[in-house]
């Protein structure tokens, strides 16, 4: 990481701490904000959060490792989560899954070589009446068929 990148990330986290407060109860909100923008929370970012909030870096890391939407490793620019719980499974999740894998040439829990898309599974998205469902970044897409799912992915930059 270049020095100016580090500086800008520090500045960004400082602003977040100002916005949400330096209380422990703001930790999750701050981590979510970093995750939303950078798609992962780097070691450096974790240390900065710990420093500015005056908690141990291990504590920050343990919170990140607990929540499935927070990542500590580099992810693609877009994170795609496919629901694998029972109702979506019965509604044809497998077809979507294999179509996506074929199209991108990667498996789930992997990232494309051009760093464009990371694929992962997720538990029930609460869209059971209109499955199969998936989340692309923060948006939810329902009643997918293999073709639309693949088209959605191809539109991602």
């Amino acid at each position, binding site marked *: 990481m270049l020095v100016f990148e580090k500086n800008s990330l520090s500045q960004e986290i400082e602003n977040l701490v100002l916005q949400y407060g330096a*209380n*422990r*109860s*703001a*930790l*999750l*909100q701050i*981590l*979510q904000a970093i*995750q939303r923008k950078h798609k992962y929370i780097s070691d450096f970012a974790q240390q900065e959060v710990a420093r500015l909030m005056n908690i141990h870096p291990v504590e920050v890391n*343990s*919170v990140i490792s*607990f*929540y*499935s*939407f*927070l990542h500590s490793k580099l992810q693609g620019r877009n994170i795609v989560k496919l629901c*694998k*719980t*029972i*109702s979506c*499974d*019965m509604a044809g999740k497998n077809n979507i899954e294999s179509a996506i894998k074929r199209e991108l040439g990667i498996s789930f829990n992997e990232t494309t070589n051009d760093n464009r898309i990371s694929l992962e599974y*997720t*538990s*029930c*998205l*609460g*869209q*059971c*009446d*209109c*499955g199969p469902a998936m*989340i692309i970044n*923060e*948006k*939810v*897409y*329902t*009643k997918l068929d293999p073709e*639309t799912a693949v088209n*959605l992915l191809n539109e991602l930059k």
Partner: protein
Amino acid sequence: MQNKTKTKRSGQIIFSPYSPGEGIKKALSIGRENILFELKSSVLKGRGGAGFPTSTKWMLSAAAVADKKFIVCNADEGEPGTFKDRVLLNEYPELIFDGMVIAGFTIGAQTGIVYLRGEYEYMLEELEDYLIKMREKNLLGKSILGKEGFDFDISIRLGSGAYVCGEETALIESLEGYRGEPRNRPPYPVDTGYMGYPTVVNNVETLSVVPHILIKGAEWFKKFGTEKSAGTKLFSVSGDCGKPGVYELPWGISVEQLLELVEAKNTKAVQVGGASGTCVPKSQFHRKFGYEDLPTGGSIIIFNESRSMLKVLKNFMEFFVEESCGQCTPCRIGNTKLLEGVEKIEKGDFSYAYLNTLKDLGKTMQVASKCGLGQSSPNSFISILENFKDEIFHTNGRGGKNA
């Protein structure tokens, strides 16, 4: 593609007509005592699944002495097959927020927090906009509707994809910025909750019922449902049926009646209460929903004859292995062992003695786990292996057939 249907529904209680703010006005005019009295006589029980009497929760925290109190709306519905809160948040935010204001007034809280699951982040903006509108109408903020000394505001916080955070103490841990690991109880949140202050954690649906009860009265509410289970329940129906979706139905309706209503055909089994609930086989379709017989948070997943129940069970156990918070051993290790057992059955590489050991393990988990997740995760393992013995063990050439 995104779920944005906003057609108004019709129903007996929750989906009955309501004009925003009406419940708050009524609450302020009748006062705390009468709100609690009305709730107590309505026998309203928590709609998240556990069914704890709402009035008791409110009374305990109203009686607690503290300089701050909190109302938390549990919008972390993560149970497989549940999506009623999505519909309420999307189409009836007025009921939820009015319910929170009423709760705040009753127990003397200043702050309400909605814990919205990360999966529903797409609704956040619209909900925030609705809160702004409420502030403009003085339904939130200082001296609400001119009531001197009643200040209350609501903020929305997001979860980050952890099923266990639907458990109220885990939810509070998460709000405080920790890993969402359940706490030992007691102390209960009603006296030691968020930041150590008295906190009422209510399900979205419970809060949505409250304004209706205050306006139309407990007697009216009790007309629906059964003696021990008053009122109606929102059922989230998914799986093999013609009309999946959210239904408001009175307690006491039977599984059969529900199946007919949603146009389910060739039904083999119904999973009531999601992955942590029970699997009801065809022979028990006469059973009735309610706290007397089949309590549920509303998740109904329907399986027709073509589905393999072993695969269903495997899906559920994978879910629990993934979602166990890992804090207590019975749940962390137990679920892994149960999943291994299912995989062994799948391969045909098992002994009945070992399966019986696993069933015993399941029973141990039910008593030894720290929170509801581990206490209820063996339910489907035990009930599916028991109720679908024939299908799982006696077909596919493993016995009985000479093919």
